């Protein structure tokens, strides 16, 4: 069965996704996926500055997601928001698809592309933010 393929962690995030929704005044929005493939992810990111170790640092103050897709797509979206929320943007930029899959206790091989979509949406957004600056 499909569900048996998913870890408890994936199902928890699918049942009660964290940070699901929209940030109206988001600093930047990253999108990945394609309706033809059945997965579309959108990350809304609010970037702010604070002093970290005495140094003025840009960090992800808030992040929310909207996702159309399967349980793995929803769970990876939820997990990436957990992983980067509150983190300096340079640190957030280093999050990999493996970090997401590992944090979820693993993903079925056929669903690994969902973790790719999640990091793609994040990296796209951060890249755009940096070039805009």
């Amino acid at each position, binding site marked *: 069965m*499909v569900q048996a393929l998913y870890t408890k962690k994936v*199902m928890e995030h699918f049942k009660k996704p964290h940070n699901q929704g929209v940030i109206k005044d988001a600093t930047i929005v990253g999108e990945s996926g394609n309706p*033809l493939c*059945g*997965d*579309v992810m959108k990350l809304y990111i609010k970037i702010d500055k604070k002093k970290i170790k005495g140094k003025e640092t840009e960090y992800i103050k808030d992040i929310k997601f909207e*996702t159309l897709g*399967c349980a793995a797509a929803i769970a990876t979206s939820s997990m990436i928001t957990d992983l980067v929320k509150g983190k300096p943007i340079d640190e957030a930029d280093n999050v990999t698809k493996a970090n997401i899959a590992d944090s979820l206790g693993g993903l079925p091989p056929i669903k690994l592309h969902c973790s790719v979509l999640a990091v793609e949406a994040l990296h796209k957004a951060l890249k755009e933010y940096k070039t805009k600056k």
Partner: protein
Amino acid sequence: MKYIYLDHSATTPINKEVLKAMRPYLGENFGNPSSLHYFGQKARKGVEDAREKIANFLNCKNDEVFFTSGATESNNLAIFGLIKKIRKQNKDRKLHIITSVIEHPAVLEVFDQLKKEGIEVSYLPVTKNGLVLEDDLKKAIKSETLLVSIMYVNNEVGTIQPIAEIGKLLEEINKKRTPEEKIYFHTDAVQAANYCDCKVSYLGVDMLSFSGHKIYGPKGVGALYVKKGTPISAIVYGGHQEQSLRSGTENVAGIVGMAKAIEMIGKKDNLKIRKLRDEVAKKLLAKIPDAIYNGDREKRIPSNANFCFKNVEGESILLMLDMEGIAISTGSACSSGSLKPSHVLLAMGVPQEVSHGSVRITLGKENTKEEIQKLIKALPPIIKKLREMSPIK
């Protein structure tokens, strides 16, 4: 939690009477039907009585029924077996075979394999309602055509294909051809056995596949009807069972159970199931916006309701319903194991992005009005929740 099963096209629960009929063959009647002693003959009688019951159902001779491990094997044997025999008779003969684009993979992938081996294959299209047209078949037939294989009922959308009409058409065409040029006709009747007339004389088929577990019988057993005189070679070798066409010790309990299940197919269930299904379709279409009902409304089995819900993904729907104790199925790519969306819905012209939101609900004879009400109550808020989560509104 009380679980509700609405996935009867995937498999059915074993009927109590069927289980009762099978029990002795899992116990005291354990003999090998090929043995000549008491134990063997007891098992042999079980197998042969079962064959007779199935022959009655199909309106054919007993020795035209061959037991297999299920419909997948029956389909493989019918198609590969025919081609193998014809190639043995004349290895240089140019061959052309025809099927439809909406077949189950157990037929489609056999055709794909034969195509790789150099046989010419035509895939008939379907209408947007999921029906094969006789006219398309007529156009596809060539002088080299050897085989037509069309499913009786589609497993995803439940549409009933015009098998008897195609049978008549091929009979007319065959009248004008020599016996060597005969076009053979096979149908995969796995989803039809519960609801449709499977008399082979009415259908005009040379071969017909079905299985036990879709008709409240056991898994791992099926049968292939092969009309007398149809050229066919074995594809597995061994102990010469089933007139040497299908070697391997018979699955005696399974065969007995399948025959009992066939005996118990009841027309009276059909009306009840149809009423419940119509209620599901009517209420869900009224309650859920942007919903599409897939498949012909008339030419479909009474148990099947198939929908596409726009901007939601089928696997998410399936899992959320499962959490509420309701079991259904989806044609969504994400749950298929192949990441390909339903080939049936795409063939019917459903846009790819819409096909991902497909849901198949298939009722059975044990389902109640209360269970249907629970589904009708549970599904709309799930679709709403998933749509709220989606970036595409």
